[in-house]
């Protein structure tokens, strides 16, 4: 009565074998994606060590490397939270500059370091929350909003510099901050805290859900607005901390602080294998590995005698290449 007509010539055993092979390949791809950034760091180290005849691994250079990568590592710890919701932001660099300016002015005026830092954090978090506010309630793309915040902060810094001239941080009163120990401690504490919040709290998980599908997240009871403010605030906090170390190292508070940070952070995010649109594939360690790669690249190119400007060009090129290679174009818009 029923005419059963099984097509296909493969036997069940064949079929199972093919299935296993396909599974193995999928697993392998997953592993490669995970390991690729680490391999990248290693490859860069080997490359520059060879090219510089070992100079790259000298104690002096490693110290320099720590100093160079320190600010960026702190920034990308915050960046992981922001980019988990796909919050592409162009104001990072100038918010840092403004925060450094506030800390320096207050500290130079005789305020305690702790209070100055608190003020810096307040200003930085406040600036970032402008973007969060615009995103939440005015429904404007946060990318556009961040452009405006960038201009606001830059304008403020330039105005103050124009009025007061060169502002130098009172280094002697807080020299201990510039030590390797302080930096390593700060970095370790922030990275650990960030890791726990990102992976083991409702807030961290909610951020990735928002990055994945905001509507579904809202319907599942996630308080989108609150989480967005949270993400931007953490970014602001990290920026303030990074700005303190930057101004102490650089000496003066001006627009040079945070210069190039926007591209650096984006490159770090992408090189580390962190999706720019955020979501479940966002791993906390990825931007940190990426930041290390960016710094090694900058440092190595410097050692080889290529001017800073050339470094920008190379980083820009690298950014576009990696985005083109890794970004899943079908999945949605890069800038939402």
């Amino acid at each position: 009565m029923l005419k059963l007509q099984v097509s296909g010539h493969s036997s069940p055993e064949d079929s199972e074998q093919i299935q296993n092979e396909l599974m193995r390949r999928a697993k392998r791809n997953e592993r490669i994606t995970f390991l690729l950034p680490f391999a990248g760091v290693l490859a860069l180290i080997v490359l520059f060590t060879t090219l510089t005849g070992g100079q790259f691994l000298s104690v002096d250079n490693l110290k320099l490397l720590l100093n160079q990568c320190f600010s960026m590592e702190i920034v990308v710890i915050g960046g992981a939270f922001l980019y988990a919701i796909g919050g592409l932001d162009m104001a990072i660099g100038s918010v840092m500059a403004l925060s450094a300016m506030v800390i320096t002015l207050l500290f130079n005026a005789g305020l305690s370091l702790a209070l100055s830092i608190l003020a810096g954090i307040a200003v930085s978090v406040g600036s970032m929350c402008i973007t969060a506010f615009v995103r939440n309630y005015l429904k404007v793309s946060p990318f556009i909003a961040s452009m405006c915040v960038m201009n606001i902060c830059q304008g403020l810094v330039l105005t103050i510099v124009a009025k007061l001239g060169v502002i130098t941080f009172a280094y002697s009163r807080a020299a201990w901050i510039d030590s390797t120990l302080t930096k390593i401690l700060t970095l370790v504490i922030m990275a650990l805290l960030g890791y726990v919040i990102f992976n083991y709290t409702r807030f961290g998980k909610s951020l990735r859900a928002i990055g994945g599908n905001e509507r579904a997240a809202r319907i599942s009871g996630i308080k989108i607005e609150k989480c967005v403010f949270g993400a931007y605030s953490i970014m602001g906090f990290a920026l303030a901390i990074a700005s303190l170390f930057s101004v102490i190292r650089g000496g003066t508070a001006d627009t040079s602080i945070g210069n190039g940070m926007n591209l650096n952070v984006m490159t770090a995010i992408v090189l580390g294998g962190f999706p720019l649109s955020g979501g479940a594939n966002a791993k906390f360690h990825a931007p940190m590995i990426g930041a290390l790669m960016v710094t090694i690249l900058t440092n190595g190119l410097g050692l080889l005698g290529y001017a800073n400007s050339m470094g920008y060009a190379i980083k820009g090129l690298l950014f576009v290449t990696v985005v083109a290679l890794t970004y899943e174009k079908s999945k949605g818009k890069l800038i939402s």
Partner: protein
Amino acid sequence: MENELLIRCTDICKNFGATRALINTNFELYRGEVCGLIGENGSGKSTLTSIIAGVQGATSGEMFRNGAAYAPANMVEAQKAGVAMIVQEAGTLPTVDVASNIFVGNYELFRKHGFLDKKRMLQEAERILQEIGADDIHADMMLGDLNFEDRKIVEIARAMYLNPEILIIDESTTALAQKGRQLIYRLITKMRSENKGIIFISHDLEELETVCNRITCLRDGVMVGNLEGDQITVANMRPLMVGRELQGNYYRADYDGTVSDEIVLDVRHITSENGYIRNFSIQLHKGEILGFGGLSDCGMHEIGRMVFGLDRYITGEILHVPSQRKIKSIQDAISLKMGYVSKDRDNESLILNASIQDNTLMAAYKKLERMGLIPPDAEKKLSDHQIEVMRTKCESGEQYVNQLSGGNKQKVAFCKWLAADSEIYILDCPTRGIDIGVKAAMYDLIYRFKKEGKAIIMISEELPELIGMSDRMIIMKDGEISAEVMRDQSVTDTQLIEYMV
């Protein structure tokens, strides 16, 4: 002429990552055939038709059309070769007009001195819309202004304008209500009389029984059977799809519609923001399956959204009676242990690009929290438990939802509220576009909810399911209740349709 071959596919294989969607599939379509393609979700129906329509390429295998090798690189090429498809999910562009949507990808047809002859394009679009019988849609309307159903009709127009010899209809009828359905049937009859071929994918087996003259069934990517002539009956199709005999009671078996007097939700005089629903009141009881039926624009979906706090209402109140609290936002609803399964699964229920576990636990994190932290082992335990309860077909909880079939995705959408221990479920088209195997599991689950004293609002466009499951049916028309029908063996579709239109 009569048995002339329209298309032949031999040994088609298609892999998606580790998933084998099609395994050495052979398929033929002859002139004058209306071939119903059946199979459970994830059996490969859509994959096969999308390969034929040029949406994607096969991993291996060959296709022949009119004796020559046929390998379309995209849908436009396939259309030029006389193969057109009306797709399962809306693929229209909302921000341009109807005519531009119909001719998208083929604007060169209206080329005039290097510019687009917009006037001719509008005329042509108007003509096609007339031809398929959609004279209330006009070529210059903005697509975004049309409702879901009319947008599907625009897609039909798009598929028809090059006069295809092979038309593929992919689950369209689950998305189309009465008007579009009639339109499709007319098209099918016309094409059949012109000796063309149609491939029709639908989960509505009764519909296939009346429309098709051949049925082909896929299971797990393999072609498992063909039905022709008298063999085409629903009774023959079901076991072919599932691979085993299904038990008799598909819906719940009892006809006892009595429920407790205890009211859980009291909806009092609510009015929707756009004023379409006015002064609406309804009460939901403990252990009740309250069915909402009607045409898709009757307002029943909006009621579900308002009750869950998703859409605002401008008058009245929704009271959770046991706690005497009012529901004004999603947060209120969830804290009162309400769950909502959206009609728009991929956009509103799930994060496709995230794991089953992430999706399952999205509404349950509060419950898992210990001193502000969420222990990973508790997460895995809860998620794995839900996968087991629902018998979700997957590798593990870490598998991404976008790799699952429609039915299994819907299971995950349900799991989310099970994991959150919901007591009141608002289910908007809970079995939309899923196959009978998973459907039966859903009905089972909903009935179990009822037995456990949970309250369920089931909004559905499928009348047999409403009649089969509800304790009480609310039939709506134009934003108002047109009838309230209690559970009874004698209730029929035709009776209810009277109240709907």
